[in-house]
């Protein structure tokens, strides 16, 4: 395993660097990982965050990077979308508190630290907000510079528009009490983006 | 250039003429006294004239002028305002620049006259006057005029809202004071409204006075002891609130500070 990590060092680009800087400005975190290590990297981040259950988007990438396997080895329970959970459990009112939603963004915007999540059969509208933690698995070639570019690509008229597209820029927060930003209002308290090269 | 004394339609009083003769100059302007200066502080327009004359500008103060009509305009009575403004258009007809010792009155002519006379027979005249009208310190700055030494200060400057946001000007009063060698101590939030607001000062007196008090205290905290501004209305309000509240603060219009 150690040898593999050395042999496939992640390749960074200016866009990736800018995205990581923006994420940190948004009080999210990010890291770059080669495809072979991305599953382990995500699982390790979750384990460190105290995650005990992961809800995974049903996206081929999740399997490709071996995430379910890595999670099980880290002792984290794995559920795949749609989970079939009852509403109270899906909302975190029952079951373990430290659930992590794992999404696969369609795009990301480097200059403002935004991931673009599209609803689909395998990707629920609420995966990231219903959970306490959010990990996004982002292939590096999906990063664009500006919001305008991301929106132009998402709504380019070449396919039916998804019913829900969410631009997520950092963990949930509220400034409604004394105008001071406080994290974790309704959505995820933490957000971590694994950029896969 | 310094030569003949002019006799015009000038309604100036003898004393100032004796000390500062009016010169024939390359530059000739009309001075709008403003109704507030007429009502409360004639010394303001007189100081304005003296400073301009010291710069070698020939100043005519049309005797028949009254008011730019802003009180009625901002109170929501455009028809009544237009009737007075029509008179002002006539009084200030001509090719000269019209100098106004008030950012608010200048802003009224520059910004509101075109709207007020849109579609009216005087539309052209209104646009023409709007083009020729300029606030006093902006005039000094535009033509690079040096009136010589004024008060030594220190003073603090209140940026009147219409000067700052209608005329988009905050540099010219500071420049004028610097040229005159007057020390300036800036106050905090100098760009914040003092709460005067014309009719607002009478319709919402408590709110108006609260903002005036904040401004007066900020002015005192600057350490200058005297507040100046391009707008007499703001100063009357600030110093009036200060006097009522027992806040020790002096006030003079910027023309008076530049004058001596």
């Amino acid at each position, binding site marked *: 395993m150690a040898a593999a990590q050395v042999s496939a060092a992640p390749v960074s680009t200016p866009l990736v660097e800018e995205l990581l800087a923006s994420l940190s400005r*948004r009080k999210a975190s990010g890291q770059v990982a080669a495809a072979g290590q991305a599953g382990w990297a995500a699982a390790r981040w979750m384990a460190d965050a105290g995650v005990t259950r992961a809800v995974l988007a049903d996206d081929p990438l999740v399997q490709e990077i071996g995430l379910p396997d890595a999670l099980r080895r880290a002792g984290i329970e794995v559920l795949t979308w749609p989970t079939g959970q009852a509403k109270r459990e899906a909302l975190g*009112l029952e079951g373990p508190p430290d659930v992590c939603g794992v999404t696969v963004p369609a795009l990301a915007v480097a200059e*403002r*630290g*935004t991931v673009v999540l599209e*609803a689909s059969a395998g990707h*629920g*509208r609420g995966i990231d*907000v219903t959970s306490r933690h959010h990990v996004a698995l982002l292939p590096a070639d999906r990063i664009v510079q500006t*919001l*305008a570019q991301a929106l132009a690509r*998402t*709504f380019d008229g070449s396919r039916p528009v998804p*019913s829900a*597209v*969410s631009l*997520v820029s*950092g963990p*949930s*927060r*509220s400034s409604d*009490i*004394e*105008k001071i930003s406080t994290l*974790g*209002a*309704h*959505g995820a308290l933490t957000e971590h983006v694994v950029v896969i090269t | 250039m310094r030569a003949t004394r002019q006799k015009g339609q000038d309604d100036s009083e003898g004393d100032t003429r004796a000390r500062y003769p009016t010169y024939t100059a390359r530059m000739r302007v009309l001075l709008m006294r403003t109704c507030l200066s*007429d*009502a*409360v502080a*004639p010394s303001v327009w007189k100081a304005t004239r003296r400073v301009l004359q010291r710069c070698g500008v020939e100043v005519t103060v049309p005797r*028949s*002028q*009254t008011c730019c009509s802003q009180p*009625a305009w901002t*109170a*929501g009575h455009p028809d*009544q305002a237009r*009737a*007075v403004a*029509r*008179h002002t258009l006539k009084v200030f007809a001509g090719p000269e620049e019209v100098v106004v010792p008030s950012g608010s009155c200048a802003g009224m002519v520059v910004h509101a006259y075109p709207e007020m006379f849109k579609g009216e027979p005087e539309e052209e005249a209104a646009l023409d006057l709007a083009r020729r009208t300029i606030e006093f310190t902006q005039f000094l700055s535009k033509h690079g005029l040096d009136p010589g030494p004024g008060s030594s200060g220190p003073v603090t400057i209140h940026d009147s*809202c219409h000067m700052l946001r209608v005329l988009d000007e905050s540099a010219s009063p500071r420049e004028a004071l610097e040229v005159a060698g007057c020390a300036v101590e800036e106050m905090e939030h100098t760009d*914040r409204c003092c*709460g005067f*607001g014309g009719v*607002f000062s009478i*319709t919402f*007196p408590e*709110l108006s006075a609260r*903002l005036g008090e904040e401004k007066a205290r900020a002015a005192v905290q600057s350490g200058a002891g005297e507040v100046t501004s391009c707008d007499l209305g703001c100063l*009357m309000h600030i110093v*009036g*609130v200060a*006097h*009522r509240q027992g806040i*020790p603060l*002096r006030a003079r219009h910027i023309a*008076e500070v530049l004058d001596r």
Partner: protein
Amino acid sequence: MSTWRRRDAGGVAYSDVEGTLRERTIVALSDRTLRGNLDTAATSWGEGRDAMRRDHGLDEMRERAREIRRQNIRDLPALLSEMQAKVREAGGTVVRAADGAEACRYITGLARARGVRVVAKSKSMATEEIKLNEALEDAGLEVVETDLGEWILQLAEEHPSHIIAPAVHLNRSQVADLFREEAGTDDVPDDREGLVAHARVRLREKFAQAGMGVSGVNLGVASTGTVCIVENEGNARLVTSQPRIHVAVMGMERVVADWDQAAHILQVLPMAAIGQDAANYVNLITGPRREDEADGPEEFHLVIVDGGRGALRGTEFEEALSCIRCGACLYSCPMWRSVGGQAYGSPYSGPIGAVITPLLEGPASPASRDLPFMSSLCGACGEACPVGIPLQDLLVRARARASSPATRTSGLAFRAWSRLWRHPSTYRTWMAGWRLMLRARGKAGWASHLPGPGAGWTQVRDMPTRWPPRR
């Protein structure tokens, strides 16, 4: 709970506010806590906005934003038709409501027909305007505001004081007391993080029960029939993903042509509103969930409210329709900063509220006709507006349109004034008389009691009778 924010149908302003506008400003001015809270909020906003101007060229983005919005308003009928067609194409329902009552009737009827008991709402000025909460409660439904600030206000039974930050006039310990009362326990933390976490759990219980989610719309994008809902907390996403029915209520002017325009406005909005270059969540919703999707509402209803907006097109007030409800003019306004939004007695406070409330209500409405006069016309609002609405000009025009006993009295006074001041001789006579009066009233250079119109002046301040004034 059933009595909170009660208002009569019709009209935009709240009907339960007490006293005249001026009296309300006096009450607010005496509230030291309120002043402190407002100052904290406005200062923090100012710092954020300065950063946006410095680092992101917010000022340079204004001209394009203004052009986009002005063009949108000119093209409004066509944009709305396109929006309507696209939403229907995506499987949604579109309802055009002429006024708030019609919108409320539709939404309550829908809730009844679907057997809804609990309605979860995300922050929406439009629903506040049309008094939807009252209508739903009258129909026997439980309504829960899920935006933290709005929920706090719901518990406090108060009206919002800011478009974006509704509870900005309350501080942390005031909030903690409200939460304790709601939860029926003293076991509520005092710190901000703890309060936010407490609300999260309480409100998730409501999300679990809600049969209908009601959101506002920040922007409708005509080319795809998408509604954009901008937020920071994540509650709007829950509102638009958890309940079986999603109803989006949109003021008819909130539509842009395409995604190029939307991108620009969506960037400008958070910069102006909260001093950040991005909001945390932007939810772009196009119709109900597709057949193969496992979550999301089965029904999507877009309710487009006119409520007097359409009549403003082509008038001297048309630019007021460009507003994107960012709240920047509120924070920038010295009046709003001094008395807060509640004194205005309308969901729309501050300069934009003082312009549009009477426009939507009619010039003679006692609840809002004084609003345009509560401004010194300092222009800070126009300067702060990210879409370049000339707010101080609109305030002046709104004053000319207002009709009340006060405006009639002032009309008579200014008629006399105009007669005297348009002639130099009568003007000079008036001035001579005035100066005599000043001199007669002055003691040691100051007058503290003036007659007539001067009485309003000397009520709170002295009048210098010599200039420069004596100390």
